[in-house]
């Protein structure tokens, strides 16, 4: 890290993602000397997610988010579908009010980096931090190759692959039950076509979740988000279930989904401009390090397992950014007290507990387990589509709802079992 050797920083932050940069922004704004170390060439170049951000927590951090951030479209339509045999059963919700927007995380992160730099933070890219630097068991900086950068306190915002925390022995190696794999293609398309094909008014955004066939019936779900002039399409599958059940390559599953008539019509004439993949934390509190603070160290964002997947919605970026914000508040307080020992940094845990983050994670704890263990992704889509098909595809006689259901579940499952798993799920969500 040649050009920062002579500088003296109070705080070093590992990773220029939403969590690390939000921490950097608040710290720098309050006069602390902050350096963010990013392995990518530019902030955002290694970030990837589905496509939607919930705005409120971010607006607490970035006052002018609405006017300044690179927002593609505000979500005015929520669509949820179950797909089997190429047939869809859809529920849609439209509203002129919107609490979330679609954005490219690469661009949003880059904007956050600008904000942090304007506030006085130093962002150094092309630097891969390998481990933490310790003195007598106390974190006193970071190590990259042969270089040591000493700072009073470190924020670990390294993301879901927590190599640094693993090397420190603070967490065990990730296992497939703790994460999901997300794949995404970004397809450029004329905005007029996007809006016409998806039933949107000019500028309106859509968030669409589809379960069943799109993932090859692997537990998880596909997503479609509308950007200004692209469509993001992909899916997320629970990795442990994928390990057990996958019989096809994940990319081919996505390609087959794109070939279903409904989707094919939507993306027709489109041009693929990017394909990527990323892991996402799924186990929430069950994958957090035992403590999110220790002497000289705070852990934020995905590295801390702070992500909530309720099946119909995923909240990661707002959790990450807000945890960075709370870490910054903690450090400012500790700075005024003149010590970064764990007694001072434990405030972070307290602030997290009082915030929506821990409340949400506790309220929905275990949800991904329930989702995974049910037949919601495997048997039920087929049953539901078959039942709805029987109701609408009328030949001579029209069946009653219960007749249609009975016929559709014949030989597959029982009504009682379906009701039981619905009950479990409704209770957890």
């Amino acid at each position, binding site marked *: 890290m040649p050009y920062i050797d002579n500088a003296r920083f109070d705080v070093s932050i590992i990773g220029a993602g939403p969590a690390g940069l939000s921490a950097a922004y608040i710290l720098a704004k309050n006069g602390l000397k902050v350096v963010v170390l990013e*392995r990518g060439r530019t902030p955002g170049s*290694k970030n*990837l997610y589905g496509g939607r951000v919930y705005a409120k927590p971010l607006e607490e951090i970035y006052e002018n988010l609405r006017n300044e951030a690179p927002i593609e479209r505000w979500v005015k339509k929520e669509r949820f579908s179950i797909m089997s045999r190429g047939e869809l059963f859809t529920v849609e919700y439209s509203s002129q009010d919107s609490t979330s927007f679609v954005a490219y995380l690469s661009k949003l992160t880059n904007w956050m980096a600008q904000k942090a730099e304007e506030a006085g933070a130093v962002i150094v890219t092309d630097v891969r931090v390998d481990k933490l630097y310790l003195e007598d068991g106390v974190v006193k900086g970071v190590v990259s190759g042969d270089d040591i950068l000493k700072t009073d306190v470190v924020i670990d915002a390294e993301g879901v692959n927590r190599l640094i925390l693993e090397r420190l022995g603070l967490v065990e190696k990730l296992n497939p039950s703790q994460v999901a794999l997300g794949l995404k293609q970004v*397809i450029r398309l004329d905005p007029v076509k996007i809006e016409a094909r998806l039933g949107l008014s000019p500028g309106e955004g859509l968030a669409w979740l589809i379960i069943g066939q799109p993932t090859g019936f692997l537990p998880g779900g596909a997503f479609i988000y509308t950007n200004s002039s692209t469509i993001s399409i992909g899916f997320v599958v629970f990795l442990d279930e994928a390990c057990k059940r996958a019989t096809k390559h994940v990319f081919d599953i996505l390609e087959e989904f794109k070939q279903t008539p409904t989707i094919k019509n939507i993306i027709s004439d489109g*041009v693929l401009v990017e394909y990527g993949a990323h892991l996402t934390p799924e186990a929430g509190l069950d994958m957090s390090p035992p403590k999110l603070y220790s002497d000289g160290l705070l852990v934020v964002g995905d590295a801390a397992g702070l992500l909530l997947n309720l099946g119909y919605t995923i909240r990661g970026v707002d959790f990450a950014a807000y945890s960075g914000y709370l870490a910054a508040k903690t450090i400012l307080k500790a700075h005024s007290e003149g010590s970064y020992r764990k007694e001072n940094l434990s405030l972070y845990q307290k602030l997290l507990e009082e915030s929506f983050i821990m409340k949400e994670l506790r309220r929905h704890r275990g949800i991904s387990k329930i989702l995974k263990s049910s037949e919601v992704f495997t048997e039920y889509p087929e049953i539901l589509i078959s039942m709805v098909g029987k109701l609408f595809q009328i030949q001579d006689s029209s069946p009653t709802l219960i007749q249609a259901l009975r016929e559709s579940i014949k030989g597959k499952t029982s009504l009682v079992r379906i009701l039981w798993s619905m009950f479990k799920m409704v209770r957890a969500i």
Partner: protein
Amino acid sequence: MSEVKVMKKMKIDEALNANVWDVDHKPHIIVDYEKCRKLCDKRICTLLCPARCYTLTGGEILFSYEGCVECGTCRIVCPHEAVTWDYPLSGRGVQYRYG
């Protein structure tokens, strides 16, 4: 970086070619083929690596790091610890613009 029409089913290479890359000279992931050969019959990496960096050639695993999107899946799903995994150095690898 070369863009692809989405009309028909794409091959993985076409999709990866749409990306901006700055591939490192040396691999950031090392695979212990001995372990693949001796211990593994399931070869789940060949189905779950989203960039298809793991392929079967003549019944043997072949790994190439060039198209790696650095997701970390192989490190986690390999049941035999055959994958030594790190991020590429100094900004190399995939360069997401629309992540």
